[in-house]
């Protein structure tokens, strides 16, 4: 039984652990997020810078080479052309220029001798025409600048990067100084773009890997930190459940080890305190038990002699001095009270020590109640609502103690008529419910929770000569040992109601205790004989 409970507890604890791992505010999640952010920032900035630098270097190098080549070709090929070349010459020159190692497309624009504008293109790219050259570039190329010291030539080589249908191009143009064709070139930058793309991909993948790695690291770090914390949590819980010998294994010298050490010290101190208190409690309990035991020996002698005195009082001969008579009466009545008190004290100490046992028998409840009332001459003051034939298996002596205390209490504080009703509770199974209701003023609300307390007096004004102050407490203990319960309440119609609830068969309880099974053993052997 304990094992399954432990297993269940372990399982719920594990589930709780999972939940806390998922909770947004959990330490683990926070660690993972922080590690991730750090890794992301570092990776993104590093790869961003690397990509940018790389891109510039690659593009500049490619561009410089192309432009240098183009300039060279312009001087060599286009410069060799006449100032007004024919269409064919222009076309030829363009073709030659495009044949250079850089493989760019060339467009030459000039005016033939007749003054007509002629175009010659390399044909490397179909339709590389003037329209493909951005207007701004054309304007810049054809713009004549003032020649100064700082600017030695009226025309310069201009370039621009354009993007056409997703492919990046380098477009450049220049004009030969001193007349001649204007040349444009276009070079696809696709290979470079591809290189840069793959670089970007690799950097992205690296960043992703760094993120995953950081998450794993964070997880590992969280585990090393959280495992001791979790152990501490489990230990604290088991300490709370009363396992005061719970201790943690202390390893290392870090803050968590310190915490574990503190926990162990606290648990040890707590265990010692509880043990001290239990020992003191035991000692005082034993003292009460011993004391009531010791009281009984002189009390037995006194009781026996008191009866002699009592008979003397009752005898008609009047053997006692009238002056002494009140004293004798007092001794007789107080001895009886002392007897009750000691008897109740002993009953209480038996319950406290856990040595109280049930002696079970099958009884008719109505008969038991009638006998209880009859034996105490309460028949006139008590109305009984019970049918004969209701049987239960319980300890008749203890039932009598309960009933006598409940009815006696009702008569004393509530006044007659006291109504006792018996019914079966079929809803919850086989429970016996006995309600004792008086017609007094009821119990004040502030007193209600204390009616079963030992030596609790409802009010200081109440005469304290009646009862030992233990009666209802003993009644409750007697109900508990049967596995039953007594509750006190005020009836809406006035008066207090004490409700006793007992299982109809208390034998399961005694079988666990290993006591009171005698009847059953005899029962079994009887069966075998038939």
């Amino acid at each position: 039984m304990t094992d399954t409970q432990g297993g269940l507890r372990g399982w719920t604890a594990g589930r709780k652990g999972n939940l806390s791992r998922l909770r947004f505010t959990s330490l683990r999640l926070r660690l993972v997020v922080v590690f991730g952010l750090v890794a992301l920032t570092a990776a993104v900035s590093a790869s961003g810078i690397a990509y940018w630098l790389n891109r510039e270097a690659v593009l500049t190098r490619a561009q410089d080479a192309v432009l240098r080549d183009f300039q060279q070709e312009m001087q060599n090929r286009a410069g060799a052309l006449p100032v007004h070349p024919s269409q064919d010459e222009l076309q030829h020159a363009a073709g030659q220029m495009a044949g250079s190692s850089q493989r760019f497309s060339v467009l030459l624009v000039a005016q033939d001798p007749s003054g007509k504008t002629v175009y010659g293109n390399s044909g490397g790219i179909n339709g590389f025409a003037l329209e493909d050259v951005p207007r701004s570039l054309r304007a810049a190329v054809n713009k004549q600048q003032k020649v100064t010291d700082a600017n030695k030539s009226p025309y310069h080589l201009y370039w621009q990067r354009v993007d056409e249908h997703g492919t990046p191009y380098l477009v450049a143009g220049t004009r030969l100084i001193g007349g001649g064709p204007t040349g444009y070139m276009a070079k696809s930058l696709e290979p470079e773009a591809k290189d840069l793309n793959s670089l970007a991909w690799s950097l992205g993948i690296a960043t992703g890997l760094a993120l995953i790695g950081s998450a794993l690291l964070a997880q590992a770090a969280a585990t090393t930190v959280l495992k001791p914390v979790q152990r501490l949590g489990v230990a604290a819980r088991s300490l709370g459940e009363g396992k005061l010998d719970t201790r943690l294994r202390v390893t290392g010298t870090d803050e968590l080890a310190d915490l574990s050490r503190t926990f162990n010290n606290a648990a040890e101190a707590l265990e010692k305190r509880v043990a001290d208190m239990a020992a003191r409690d035991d000692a005082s309990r034993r003292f009460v038990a011993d004391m009531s035991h010791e009281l009984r020996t002189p009390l037995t002698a006194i009781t026996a002699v008191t009866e002699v005195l009592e008979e003397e009082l009752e005898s008609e001969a009047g053997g006692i001095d009238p002056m002494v008579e009140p004293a004798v009466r007092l001794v007789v009545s107080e001895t009886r009270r002392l007897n009750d008190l000691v008897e109740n004290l002993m009953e209480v100490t038996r319950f406290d020590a856990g040595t109280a046992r049930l002696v079970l028998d099958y009884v008719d409840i109505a008969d038991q109640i009638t006998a209880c009332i009859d034996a105490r001459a309460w028949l006139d003051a008590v109305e009984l609502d019970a049918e004969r034939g209701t049987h239960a298996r319980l300890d008749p002596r203890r039932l009598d103690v309960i009933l006598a205390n409940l009815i006696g209490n009702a008569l004393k504080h509530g006044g007659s008529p006291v109504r006792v009703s018996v019914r079966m509770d079929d809803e919850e199974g086989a429970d016996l419910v006995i309600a004792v209701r008086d017609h007094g003023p009821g119990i004040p609300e502030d007193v209600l929770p204390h009616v079963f307390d030992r030596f609790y007096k409802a009010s200081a004004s109440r005469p304290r000569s009646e009862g030992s102050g233990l009666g209802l407490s003993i009644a409750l203990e007697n109900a508990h040992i049967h596995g039953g319960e007594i509750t006190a309440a005020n009836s809406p119609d006035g008066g207090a109601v004490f409700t006793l609830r007992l299982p109809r068969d208390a034998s399961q309880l005694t079988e666990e205790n290993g006591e009171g099974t005698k009847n059953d053993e005899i029962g079994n052997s009887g069966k075998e004989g038939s």
Partner: protein
Amino acid sequence: MGQNEPVPSLLLIEDDDAIRTALELSLTRQGHRVATAASGEDGLKLLREQRPDLIVLDVMLPGIDGFEVCRRIRRTDQLPIILLTARNDDIDVVVGLESGADDYVVKPVQGRVLDARIRAVLRRGERESSDSAAFGSLVIDRSAMTVTKNGEDLQLTPTELRLLLELSRRPGQALSRQQLLRLVWEHDYLGDSRLVDACVQRLRAKVEDVPSSPTLIRTVRGVGYRLDTPQ
């Protein structure tokens, strides 16, 4: 306390001086002749010298305790024994009943209660009707107040005899423990059913062929006991 009855003689074995004196005083006033002893050894010696009708025996005694005294008496004698025990519901009662006591009274004991118990126990030995009954090999002679099994006399205590008589008066009919307590022990409604169980066991040990599987005194589960005629 009728004047015509013979005065019962009791032996009170109790070590505490005050209790012994007080109980002696009380019981004497109730009309008993009381002899006292302060220890088990003294009590056993006194028992041999003068034969009392009944023994009132304290459980807690110096030297040999009340249980042992009870067992020693039962080895040779069937005279009734009432135990004075300290506690109502612990092992004392069970051990006391198993060692052969007929009844017990819990301290602090009231003289009237003790007197009533003493008288009830003594009444068990009184003869009543004059017939006899046979249950198999068991023959109960109510006039002679003797029980024989296979022709041999059985040594029964008055309580065992009374229990057998009450059962034999209603053969085949189940009697509850509470009924038996009223009939045999004359207890009020709060009698201790362990008295019945212990006495039935002692009786079975004497009258049954095999006490562990009884054929005469049968247990009726949930009710009590009944006496059967073997087939």
